[in-house]
């Protein structure tokens, strides 16, 4: 870690990727204490812990809260037992509900639920039901992800063999409509492609990523972005531990973009946010505005109804948000 990094205090901490609640209280406490000792937390620091329903139920959440965890992200995914089984989740719908209730009662400030749609066999009715039940748990935050079929996953192999019955595009769009309808009705505001918040409850940690600002990552596969350099650590946990114990850097890949590439990256990340990107902020940071870097692309995208300008901000339209990759492919 660079000395410069050590001089910073932490304004947000996100313990996640995998299921950190498999760690016992002692280890979690050690991590949090170490962070406090090495960096120190800002007074209003946001400290998120990622978790699964089944690992929460038998856990002393008061203890976690005392350590400073004030935000809990729970990987519920669905309230439909069949869909959960298909996703290989060990919890069922009932456990999911109980976990959220337990978390709610613990007094942890912010609770976020991860939900998924576009699952094999899912219908608009089952999505409406799942999302309604999520909203009934009254979380402050919802992350709602459409299933993507990535290469080299079991789903990918099934999909290629035509054995995965995914909802078609019409059904996905109908599910999107249900999401907007239910979230709006419950007072949620969409602030990123897949994220919804109650007023004032956005995930400050993730906003750092989307605004393409700097962060430090620790642990296997974690990525840092510090002083303009992005460093990825080795993904295999065992190798990671061996390298650390041997006093060797676990950094596996380094990337430093030139100013224009970094500008472009900031633009495409920022467009994921409903707030869009501010030309003024870009100008402060890079010394240039969108029109300086892009030419006809902006006009074409605007004419196609995907992108619009609102004062100093550029934002995706509702249609543009559904076709964000089309826009980003032009601007990357």
């Amino acid at each position, binding site marked *: 870690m660079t000395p410069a990094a050590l001089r910073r205090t932490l304004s947000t901490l996100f313990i996640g990727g995998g299921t950190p609640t498999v760690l016992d209280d002692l280890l979690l406490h050690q991590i949090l204490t170490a962070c406090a000792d090495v960096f120190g937390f800002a007074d209003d620091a946001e400290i998120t812990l990622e978790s699964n329903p089944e690992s929460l139920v038998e856990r002393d959440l008061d203890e976690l809260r005392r350590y400073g965890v004030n935000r809990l992200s729970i990987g519920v995914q669905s309230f439909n037992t069949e869909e959960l089984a298909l996703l290989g989740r060990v919890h069922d719908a009932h456990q999911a509900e109980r976990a959220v209730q337990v978390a709610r009662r613990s007094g942890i400030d912010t609770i976020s639920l991860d939900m998924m749609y576009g699952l094999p066999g899912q219908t608009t009715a089952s999505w409406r039901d799942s999302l309604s039940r999520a909203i009934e748990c009254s979380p402050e935050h919802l992350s709602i992800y459409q299933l993507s079929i990535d290469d080299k996953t079991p789903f990918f192999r099934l999909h290629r063999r035509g054995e995965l019955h995914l909802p078609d595009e019409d059904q996905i769009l109908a599910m999107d409509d249900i999401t907007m309808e239910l979230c709006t009705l419950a007072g949620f505001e969409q602030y990123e492609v897949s994220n919804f918040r109650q007023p004032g409850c956005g995930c400050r940690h993730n906003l750092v990523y989307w605004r393409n600002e700097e962060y430090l990552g620790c642990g296997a596969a974690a*990525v840092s972005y510090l002083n303009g350099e992005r460093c990825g650590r080795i993904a295999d946990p065992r190798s990671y531990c061996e390298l650390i114990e041997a006093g060797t850097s676990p950094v596996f890949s380094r990337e430093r973009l030139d100013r224009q590439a970094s500008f472009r990256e900031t633009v495409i990340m920022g467009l994921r946010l409903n707030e869009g990107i501010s030309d003024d902020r870009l100008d402060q940071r890079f010394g240039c505005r969108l029109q300086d870097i892009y030419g006809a692309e902006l006009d074409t995208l605007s004419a196609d109804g995907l992108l619009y300008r609102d004062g100093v901000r550029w934002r995706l339209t509702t249609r543009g948000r559904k*076709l964000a990759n089309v826009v980003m492919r032009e601007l990357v």
Partner: protein
Amino acid sequence: MMNHIRNFSIIAHIDHGKSTLADRMIQLCDLVTAREFKDQLLDTMDIERERGITIKSQTICLPYTARDGNTYALNLVDTPGHVDFSYEVSRALASCEGALLLVDAAQGVEAQTLANLYLAMENDLVVIPVINKIDLPSAEPERVTFQIEEDLGLEADLIQMCSAKNGTGVAEILEAIVTHLPPPKGSIDAPLQARIFDATYDSYRGTVISCRIINGSVKQGDQIVLMSTGASHRVEEVGLFRLRKEPCKQLSAGEVGYILAGIKSVGDAKPGDTITLRDRPCAVPLAGFREVLPVVFSSLYPIAADDYEDLVAALEKLQLNDAALSFQKDSSAALGFGFRCGFLGLLHLEVVQERLEREFDISLILTVPSVRYRFTLTDQTEIMVDNPAHFPDPSKIARTEEPYIKASILIPERYMGAVMNLCMERRGENTNYHYPTPGRIEFTCELPLGEVIYDFYDRLKSITQGYGSFDYELLDYRSSDLVKLDILVNGEVVDALSQLVHRSNARERGLSACEQLKEEIPRQMFKIAIQAAIGTTIIARTNVSALRKDVTAKCYGGDITRKRKLLEKQKAGKKRMKTVGNVEIPQSAFLSVLKRDAD
């Protein structure tokens, strides 16, 4: 002298281990030290492997000390391996007395092996079967032995077993070459007769002729004559193929080697042609020479218009080494400037395309391959057309003719029905068959060449599970009924997708093209109509539905680099598309129309 020469080829299916076996033989023959072997030989091999398909062969002369104590010159005459190049293969085989038939112990005998074995038999070569890869767990040497004996009718007691990978049995193969293959015949005192079997281009020394001396001898300073053209050249150097070219005093009857004679273009040293001496010519040229003419035509367009100059340079450079390639300027409303090129066949076309893309880094779009048609117009003028763009006004056509071939297809008996159907589908006539060996049928059929270049060979391989081998010769032009099939994307004709087809096939081809394009044209933000038309009549249509959702659900700190790179890659892919009207059409879409549905 000739008693201590053996000239042979290795006949093998792709991947059956030909290069590995050649490597092992070279090592055993003390041609080079281990160090040189590693530094020099393997490097060239890597490039070959990288190219995937080798058109140009590499011939090598191996000094081998046999168990009888004598040193023999073993000339390994390499051959290209595909039906498009069967003429070149036949000329290489005609330069040998024997051949190793290399068969993979796990895969067994395959089509390409058979086609070339057939050529070897026509040239009266002694064939030593070699079963390779006996070290593989899946090896079935007994089954393959049975196949060689029963299906191919070769002598089982000549069979050699080896693993070229670990070297087992390779020494025995060298010994078998000396023992079982006959030495060359011929007279050193007779007038020179040498057969050209290959020619490559060396930028410093001009054309390097690979040849087999049948009679007589040739040395530096001789005036040679290439008998097909009568052109005369002074010999600058003769030599043997070692790892590099190694000059020698003279090449004599029975030997295989090279001749440098200041010949500017490989096109002037035609495979199969006979070389003799100007001052003491032979009476007749060697039999079997024929002019190689392009039979398949397609236009090549650079995807990026600024690659045009590079494409010119690349084609010129390729032609230096590939006399069969011809090209002339062409242009398309959809694709801009390009070249109309002539090829020996579809594989030749694919090889050229691959080399242009990989060695010269030029992304290309090819148009649907065509043969050369003959039209007699109402005013009795006769025109030859190999490009749909030059299709005459149908009302002015008095008579249409297309080239026919005689196809010879060698198959195990059980595939007879399937092959017969395929030939009928392709408008075959005058089918016939006989049994060259029990269980094996030679099926002959007269087919329009235009039907054969349209994925015939792929289909044949598929319906015969790889056992069908195929060769053809051009017959004549016969009366036909052609139409020009146009493809429209969102109402605009994409001229590069037009093709000339027989009227009876038009609807099926049109539908097939529409379906293929539908698969390959990525969805865009609006609906795209794809239509096939003859003149103004639409005969088939499909749609590509509009894209309404395309967004990455998750993108956090650890995903940024990967997602950005993916978008960058897709953006680069878009640049490789051609825009027709407002529709972006990828290169793969143009290529897909060249192939029929895989049914």
